[in-house]
Every structure is written in structure tokens, then in C-alpha cells.
């Protein structure tokens, strides 16, 4: 005997008991929607082991962190984490709720659709000698990146900007040969006078 939403009329669903509401044919499974990039900000207590708690939770709940940046804030007892991860809205909301269950986490906010300033810093060591150095410098200049170190056969470009801007610069520089690349991970701050940390000021 099988009864699903699309197959009513079995003995378990007597005809005389018409439901008051029309139900969807199949109940949606949370977390199976279209995945896209989300940015979460977590305000946490500045205690040993908090990063481990956050990382362990994300691993145990099967969420994949793409970037993670942790730093102090203006309050010495409070740290701030910026996480980016991919998933559908429900899955990321679940990740945020699970984070909030941690005793050391004071606040979690998904700022993906908020107006924010979003930046990361990247250091890119590019192969460049006297023949193509000018070309590299031009590209770096167009992306408002700085050259912070210069050697005979390479130079280091320091780029800041959103993840997408840094991605674009890296894609262009890849043609010259990238010897080494490091990215800080995204940090964000909401625009305007509002403060994510305001609610947790002690």
C-alpha cells in the first residue's frame, strides 16, 4: 500500500474526509534548493577554543566553509568572524541557527542581501621580468592594486576588493604565471550607521 500526496484515494485517505487545505503534492525537503554564496557574520566571545567550536560545528553539520576571517573587535572580550559558504537559503539559515546554539556565540547575521562593504586582501606573487613587467603593472594599476615587492623575475601584487574583483585580477595575472597566492578571506561591514556589534555591546 502506498500513499503519497500525488496518489490519494488509498484506504488511509477516505474520500469522505476531504482535507481543509490543499497540500502540495510532495513535502519540500529543506536544504535542497538552489545553492549560492552567503556571507555570515558571527560575533563571538574572545576565548580560547571558540574558533575550534565554530569549525567543528560546521564540519559536523556538513557545511563547507569557503572563507573564514577572524579578528579582534574594539571590545577586547569580543571577536568577529566572517564566514562565506555556499548553500540554499534554508541550509545557510540552519547553519546560522546552529552557530547561534554555541554558548560562546553572541550573534550571527546573514548579511548576503544587506548593503555592505565587502573586502578581502590578496597577495599575488607573479612571474615578471623586464620584458613583461610593464604589462603586469598596467593590469595591477587598473585594478587599483599595489606592487609591494619587486625582484628580478617576480613581483608581489597586493590587491584589495570584493571576492569577485580579486578573482578577476587573479584570472588576468594567471597568464603570466602565479608563483604564490594568499587571500585573507572576505570581511564585511554593513553600510550606514547601524552596527552588527551594537546589539552585543556590554
Amino acid at each position: 500500500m502506498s500513499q503519497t500526496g500525488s496518489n490519494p484515494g488509498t484506504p488511509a485517505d477516505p474520500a469522505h474526509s476531504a482535507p481543509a487545505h490543499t497540500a502540495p503534492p510532495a513535502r519540500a525537503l529543506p536544504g535542497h534548493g538552489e545553492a549560492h554564496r552567503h556571507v555570515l557574520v558571527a560575533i563571538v566571545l574572545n576565548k580560547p577554543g571558540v574558533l575550534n567550536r565554530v569549525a567543528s560545528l560546521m564540519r559536523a553539520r556538513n557545511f563547507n566553509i569557503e572563507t573564514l576571517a577572524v579578528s579582534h573587535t574594539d571590545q577586547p572580550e569580543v571577536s568577529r568572524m566572517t564566514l562565506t559558504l555556499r548553500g540554499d537559503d534554508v541550509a545557510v539559515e540552519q547553519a546560522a541557527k546552529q552557530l547561534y546554539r554555541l554558548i560562546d556565540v553572541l550573534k550571527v547575521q546573514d548579511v548576503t542581501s544587506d548593503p555592505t562593504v565587502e573586502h578581502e586582501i590578496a597577495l599575488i606573487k607573479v612571474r615578471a621580468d623586464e620584458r613583461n613587467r610593464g604589462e603586469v603593472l598596467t593590469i595591477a594599476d587598473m585594478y587599483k592594486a599595489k606592487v609591494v615587492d619587486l625582484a628580478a623575475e617576480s613581483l608581489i601584487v597586493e590587491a584589495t576588493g570584493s571576492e569577485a574583483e580579486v578573482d578577476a585580477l587573479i584570472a588576468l595575472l594567471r597568464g603570466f604565471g602565479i608563483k604564490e597566492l594568499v587571500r585573507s578571506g572576505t570581511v564585511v561591514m554593513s553600510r550606514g550607521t547601524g552596527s552588527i556589534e551594537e546589539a552585543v555591546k556590554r
Partner: protein
Amino acid sequence: MGTRDDGPDRTATRINHMPGAGTERADAISAGRHEMLTDTLRKQIKSLAERGLKRPRIGADAVCEALLAQGVDLFFGFPGGVLLPLYDVLGDYPELRHILVRHEQGASHAADGYARASGRVGVCLGTSGPGATNLVTGIGNAMLDSVPMVAITGNVVSSLLGKDAFQEIDITGITLPCTKHNYLVNNPNDIPRVFAEAFHIAATGRPGPVHIDITKDALMGACTAEHPTTVDLPGFKPNFEGNYRQVKLAAQEIARAERPVILAGHGVLIADATEELREFAEKTQIPIAHTLLGVSAIDETHPLSLGWVGMHGWKHVNRAIQSADLLIALGMRFDDRVTGHVPTFAPYARIIHVDIDPAEIGKNVAVEIPIVGDVKRVLTALLPLVPAVEPESRAAYLTELAEWRVESEKTPWHGSGAWRNGQLSADFVVCKIGEATNHDATIVADVGQNQMWAARYAGFRRPNSHISSGGLGTMGFGLPAAMGAAMGRPDKETWAIVGDGGLQMTVQELMTLVQDHIPVKIALLDNHKLGMIRQWQELIYAGNYHSSHLLGPDWLKLADAYGVAGFRASKPEEVDAAIAAARAVDGPALVHFMIAEEQNVFPMMPAGKGLSDLLEEQFEEPKQ
């Protein structure tokens, strides 16, 4: 009973869940717990000088004082090298009873059983290294079932931390994902604060286990810190009151539903909301289904009690869910054993979901009306908003459910006590235990077929009289948890219903029962099988019975060796006498029920299928 709503100063963050407890002693301790973290109780802790002792106060003293300050009267533990400073001072605190278990897993399960039966925080103790890792199974079990527990472990002196010292293991790293919170304490002056926080976290909001790891030097070092009167946990603020707009929306849904069903979970028992649940159901004339851990949330003889839902629940309950137009889910989390295949779960129903943990909302099943809050408070807020419904206006619906019920209760039941070929039927045995104890005993199940039979057939009338390892499904849980339950509710008879597989995992605790004279009665349903494994192998793995047959000892000889009174029943007509004999023993007793070897639990929802796809017992008598 819970007195938590009186007193003007009880702010939301100070509420602790305390279901009713019965004895005078339990009530006194409950009153003590009620005043936890208040000056009154703190001043009652006798100092070392008041105890007539001249030695300096050390961390271990702070541990004992903190336990007393939290209203702990007993705890379960096993000593070890790094815990010796604590065991050295325990004798100075005769108010604290220490039960010496035979294995640390027994300690954590016993603390779990104690907590569930009494509604207070259970406490267990183990040494560093293996002692700590042995506790982990019980801690995980408490985590999955939201049981308030404080697990204490010792660790090596802090100068040796991270040096792979003898019996050193990163136990806070191990318990991190299976506790609500954990602490590593290496300063004796942190002990009072950490204990106050740990008990607060364990018992407040959605309960859970908290682990405190204390280094040996912190136990031995001088401690001058006072026990705090408040806790400062800015990141821990559970929401108790449901959002009023959501509650009003829920009331509107309830008013227009024609086939509503309440799904009561463990949260109803944890929140001490059984009275509110009954009132709400009676006013709205909505039948109450319950989950495995929701068993005993409603008196099963109540006319609106429908029964147990899910994989081995009653067919009529699953049918009711599948035909419902509204589910009112209270303090439950839509576990896969409840929903089966989610896309086919309750296809016609809109869902109101009340849970104190916001992360449970929309985790497994998308719901229409989420309400984050304490079930008791939400029901109290909801009650005046819902219209009173006359039984007559739901007559057609309730009559239909009753008809389904008659049919469903008839089919898998072996009322004669005999399964095929006259072998003893397990459902009959469990039913007889329920009857003999007048449905008032605390019944603790192990895991597997015995657990399913216990939940289906024992019959439960009193809140918290059913204790079962739900989320983690821990074999070996039954005996030690019954030990704790018997200590938590000494006024009630306690029966452990266990299988021969599970009992062999923690059988050593029989000795603890004897040494501490804990009067647990053990009903061993012995089919010489890992019964649930065998059942799946029969029904799903084409009869490939690998590793599901197991030998057991001569159980009566074993019981005798431990000094436990043993009885045996292998025929239906011997069951009553065996139960009576065990009940007559002043102390622990074991009844060896030799049940049919190949009896299955029906109906059964195969994994991955839906609530409408139940396998049922085939009634063909095998050829003689």
C-alpha cells in the same frame, strides 16, 4: 511539581525545567534546585571550618560545594589517578552520595536515567583518558535526547597537558560536538563559576549535557573563590515565550482545521507541560499522537490519546498523521524515525511546530507556523485563543480514528501469550509487566525490539514513567539508566526491559545494584538474537542472518553469581508468577523470559519509506 512560575524575580534566563518529582526528599531537593545560585543555598554550604576540618580549602572542596549548591544529592562515578584528590575529600561531604559504577558508561547512562526520572540534573564522574572516553557514549546519548547532565572528568596536571602524558587524552576535543558546552578548568578558582554556569546551561532552555574537564593541579590547588550568585552568559539566552503573533496564527489554523492531530514529543515532558497538553487537547478535542520519547506525555487511557507514531508506531496513528490537515508538533524534532520519507510525510497537513530550539524549526521538515518557545508557556498562551470544540462536532473524525484503532490494535497482538508454536510472545510479557505494576512503575527500555515492545505494550499513565534511548539508540542503556532512574524516583518501582544483546553490553552494573542495594527489576527478553538486526535481515536483507545470533550465559547462574535474585519464565502461564516473584524481592531481581526467537515487531516502516508503507505481520501458521 514545578513551582518555577512563582516568585517575582524569575527572569526568562533563570528558568529551569523541572518536571514533577515525588518523594519528600526529591521535593526538598527540587526546592533547593529552585533556589540554585541564590544566597540562601550558598550560605547553607558548610565551610571546612564548620565541618570541623583544619585543612586548607582546595579545588576538590570547591567541586563538592558546587555540587551541593546545585542541589545534587548523588552522582555516579569511577575513580582514577587524577581524581584521587577529589575522592580524598569526598568523605568530608556525607550529604553527597557517590555511587561506584563498574564502568564509566554505566555512570553516564545512570546520570541520564536519574535526570529523566527526576527532572533534576544528572551528574557523572570519570577519570582522565579511558575513564573520560568511556563516559562519551552516555554523554552523546544525553545530547541527542536533550537530557540535563553534568559530566565531570579529571585530567593530567596542566604542565603535562599536550605532552601525551599517562592517561591523557584531549577529552574536551572529543566531547565538543556531543555536548551543549564544555570546559577545561586548570585554575582552582575557576571551579565555582564554571560549575554554576554548567548547571545553568545543562538545565535551561533545551537541556543537554555539559562536560567539565578539571586538571589534577586545579583539584589540588588552594581555592579562595566564592560560589557565584549569578551567571554571566551573554551568548546563552533561550527564548521561552512564543511570539504572540505566531501563537495567534496557530490558533486560527487550529480553529479551521477539520482533521488536526497533536504530535507530542519529549519537550512536553521536559517542559512539565503534560497538564497543559491534556487541557489543550480536551478543549479543542484534538487527538494526541506522541513520539517515542513523548511516551507518557499523556495518560494512554485518556480518550484523546491516540498512540505512538513512527517506524514501529501504531498503524492507526500513522494513518491519522497521513490523513491529517493540521499537525500541531509540540517539543519534537521530526526525526527520520517519525517522518520516514519526508516528501510523503503528512501530505495534506499544514504544520505548527513549537520548539524551544530555533535550530529545530525547519531542520528536517518545512513548517508553516513555527513558534520558538517553551511548550508549557506556548500552550498556556494558546489555550485561551482556541475555541472550545464540542466532542459532537468532531464525532465523525474521532469515530473514524477509533475504528482504525480497533483494527490496528488487533492485528499484531498475541493476547494468548503465545507466538507461533506456542513460544512465549514478547508483547504479552511487556503487557503483563505494565499490568502487574499498575502502570505506575518507571519502565526503562534498552534498544532494539525490546524497546519497541516496551513502548507499544507496557501502557503508560504517569509522566516520565517511560525512559528510552531515542536519538542515539544506545544498546546497553537499559540497565544503568534504570539504576539511575530508581535512584531518581525511589518512591516508584523501576523495571528495566532489556534484550539479551543489550544486557551483555553493560551487565557488570548488576554488581552496582547489589552493592548499593538499588531495587531495579530486570525483565530480560531473551531470544538468543540481536532481534532488531535479525528482523531487518529477515525482511530487508533476504534472510542473510550474519552475526545476529548470539549466545548468552546461563542467566540464572549469572544472576546468582552477582547475588541478584533470578527467575525464569518460558511459557505464557509462567509469566505472572515470575513477575510477582521479582516484585516480592527486596532489592534487585532478574527475570529471564525465554521468548520466541524469531518474533518481529510489527508494523514496521522500512527505512527510506513513508508512514503509509508499513510492513505488517503475516498470519500464516507455519506447517507443524
